[in-house]
């Protein structure tokens, strides 16, 4: 029950609430390790709760997640992606390449919206052609995600970028927002393409290839075969809610997700904060260099030294800028994506069910039937059928469980790789930054000592 409750609370409290103790999202009993986290963040160092509003408000639809670039550098075409792909557990060559670019604004009498160009290149037989170009808007992505969730309720569907950020509502169409969203949408589609199951989803194919009118008419159709099946499983699953005995592994998954969610949220906040601090540092540094130039105007003998110092500071400034952009390209999007993932995973796990539960239900139904003395032939036929149906359901359930387990393993593997890569990149950026600054100052120092030698004045040893 407890796990259930926690899971259902997760979507709204997946991110730490502002003002309150930001380190332990989600109510429920604290985990070992997590109770320490509140004390560990010193007030003087980090006030995580101050004006992080834009992170805390998400759309009510918990299924909207942020998706980010697959790779730190945004490939400009599907072909260039070939060189930048991270191969996962599938050693096979990719045969589906997708890019999302060229956001365009459309104005109608009713609304204004943005469409993104999606280019697909593929060698797959089931596609009519080898290259497709379509335009899609955010709504279409929402639709696709919905369909995928319907069809594969036990698989981990990648998150979409947020619908909107309340704080920045007015700037819905500002450049940064659009760019972040574009990268996230690109990531979203590529994650689906890389998923062993989702990549063959029919709706996905239609999304990538259909013309605008084709897509709208397809959307209006009822749920497809796959999704009908999915519905049944889901229906059974929801009736299973409240099941007490869960298998060990799912408990483990639950625990992991909770802790992971806490940690990744913290990391997200920390990373955003670092970006903010670096930006403010950059802003101050910009002013720092020029003062030395100003000073050099009134000093005859120190002109060169002061000017050199100023140029060193400016160069370090530029290096900081580069470091910041590296952070926002590589680390921030990845961490944020996993924040959204972690929010999404809680409900999925709550949907997972076990065979024992199914058995119990079956026993219950059986018992119910037995108690009814008047058994009509119809009902008798039913009771004969029922165990068979339940048996089929059991199989379905077991399949679903296995699918989820496999997907979970895959997701975890991906997560570890992505996180590892993102942090390695961040470390690399920092190393590069310090190396640049070091070179700058060292050359300044050499030039000063050379001057000393040239002037041959008696300076300090």
């Amino acid at each position, binding site marked *: 029950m407890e796990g259930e409750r926690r899971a259902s609370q997760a979507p709204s409290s997946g991110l730490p609430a502002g003002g309150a103790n930001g380190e332990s999202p989600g109510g429920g009993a604290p985990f*070992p*390790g*997590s109770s*320490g*986290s509140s004390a*560990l*963040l010193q007030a003087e*160092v*980090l006030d995580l709760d101050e004006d992080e509003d834009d992170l805390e408000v998400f759309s009510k639809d918990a299924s909207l997640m942020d998706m980010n670039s697959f790779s730190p550098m945004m490939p400009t075409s599907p072909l260039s992606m070939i060189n930048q792909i991270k191969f996962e557990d599938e050693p096979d060559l990719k045969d589906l390449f997708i890019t999302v670019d060229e956001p365009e604004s459309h104005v109608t009498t009713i609304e204004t919206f943005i469409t993104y160009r999606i280019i697909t290149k593929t060698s797959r037989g089931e596609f009519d052609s080898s290259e497709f170009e379509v335009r899609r808007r955010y709504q279409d992505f929402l639709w696709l995600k919905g369909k995928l969730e319907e069809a594969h309720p036990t698989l981990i569907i990648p998150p979409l970028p947020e619908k909107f950020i309340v704080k920045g509502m007015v700037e819905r169409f500002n450049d940064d927002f659009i760019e972040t969203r574009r990268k996230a949408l690109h990531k979203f589609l590529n994650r689906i393409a890389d998923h062993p199951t989702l990549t063959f989803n029919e709706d996905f194919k239609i999304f990538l290839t259909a013309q605008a009118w084709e897509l709208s008419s397809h959307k209006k159709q009822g749920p497809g075969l796959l999704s009908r099946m999915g519905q049944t499983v889901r229906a059974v699953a929801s009736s299973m809610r409240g099941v007490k005995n869960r298998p060990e592994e799912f408990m483990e998954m639950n625990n*992991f997700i909770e*802790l*992971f969610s806490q*940690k990744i949220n*913290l*990391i997200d906040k*920390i990373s955003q*904060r*670092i970006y903010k*601090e*670096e930006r*403010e*540092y950059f802003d*101050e*540094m910009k*002013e*720092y260099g020029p*003062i*030395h130039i*100003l*000073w050099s105007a*009134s*000093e005859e*003998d*120190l002109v060169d*030294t*002061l000017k050199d*110092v100023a140029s*060193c500071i400016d160069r*370090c400034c530029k290096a900081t800028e580069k470091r910041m952009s590296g952070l926002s390209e590589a680390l921030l999007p990845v961490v944020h994506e996993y924040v959204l993932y972690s929010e999404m995973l809680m409900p999925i796990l709550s949907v997972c069910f076990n065979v024992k539960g199914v058995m119990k239900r079956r026993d219950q139904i059986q018992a119910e039937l037995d108690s009814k003395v008047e058994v009509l032939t119809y009902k008798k036929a039913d009771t004969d059928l029922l165990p068979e149906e339940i048996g089929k359901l059991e199989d379905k359930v077991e399949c679903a469980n296995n699918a989820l387990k496999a997907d979970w393993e895959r997701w975890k593997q991906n997560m*570890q790789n992505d*996180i*590892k890569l993102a*942090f*390695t990149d961040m*470390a*690399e950026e*920092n*190393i590069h*930054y*310090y*190396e640049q*600054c*070091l070179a700058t*100052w*060292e050359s*300044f*120092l050499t030039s*000063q000592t050379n001057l000393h030698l040239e002037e041959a004045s008696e*300076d*300090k040893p």
Partner: protein
Amino acid sequence: MEQAPPDPERQLQPAPLEPLGSPDAGLGAAVGKEAEGAGEESSGVDTVFVVVVVLFTFVQMTHNNFWLKKIEISVSEAEKRTGRNAMNMQETYTAYLIETRSVEHTDGQSVLTDSLWRRYSEFELLRSYLLVYYPHIVVPPLPEKRAEFVWHKLSADNMDPDFVERRRIGLENFLLRIASHPILCRDKIFYLFLTQEGNWKETVNETGFQLKADSRLKALNATFRVKNPDKRFTDLKHYSDELQSVISHLLRVRARVADRLYGVYKVHGNYGRVFSEWSAIEKEMGDGLQSAGHHMDVYASSIDDILEDEEHYADQLKEYLFYAEALRAVCRKHELMQYDLEMAAQDLASKKQQCEELVTGTVRTFSLKGMTTKLFGQETPEQREARIKVLEEQINEGEQQLKSKNLEGREFVKNAWADIERFKEQKNRDLKEALISYAVMQISMCKKGIQVWTNAKECFSKM
């Protein structure tokens, strides 16, 4: 110690030779040496600080014997005291221990010759006195009374240990600057400051220097009304204004940059904690996360030392910020003297004219006497003669005075300018050194950063 007659003009027997390097070089040479009892911070009112012995040497000679005796001056300790002030109210202040050692040339052993406690206000008194008696000298400034340009919100307190420590160093620097100045070091009052604990204040006050001080109002008046100031001094005044403004600006921005830098580093420390918590639930990534977290902690804590070093750099700049005021004081004195001269010349000219008029009988200028004469009748020839006599006397006197004022003025300009040249060279040396030391600090910071992030990267890639 010998009771010195209250004549500050009298020069001390010891005459200085060139100091060994600049005071700052001396500072660098001996930092870190600790005396007994150093380093312990006792609870309660007394706080004792680490001793930093700074070496400065000047050579002592008598006119007959020639023996070399090195003198070391250091402000070695700071102590909180309570006492009663002039209004009989209890107050807390910090006292500083000044130690003077003489070092025998032959065996290099140092013997403590004098040690006494002084508080900041006594340093101020010394400086005020020097300003009056050496108006042509750019008198070294005192360290700031209150902490300004602070980047860390916590350290604006005068009783803050770090501030007191930096002030101790600043006071020592002040004394060393005086001791290394070819003229100031010979001053008797300065010598007594170092050697005569009791009665020193009275001795200074007996010199009556306060009376000799120029009033601020007079100086301001002169600034506005002087007609022909020496152009070099006008330029110097502009320079000092610029210097003050640009250094203030620089210090302000530096403080803000330091604040931001602190933020960047410290936030990374949070990674450390989260990583180590996270590592508890990760099987494969666990070790990598844990050790990466440790490096993040190292990174975050490294900023404290870095910024402390930068504080010393800021102090070096601050000294020259305050020197700007000393420069202005010299300019002001020149303006005063020049104005005085101009007034005297004007006065003399008008007296001469008056005299001439009386002698020739023409009245070219309006005068009260002329008016009354017209109204009440001419004065008698005897009266006129008497007046002419008086005027002639005054004119003579005036001419003498003008001559001596001119001489004084020229002497002043000559001496002042010599000291200003000396000061300029010192400033260029010191500031260049400060800028270079800033670069050295940056280099060290970068190297540390590279090391930490390389380690972190290794941990990440092993995850």
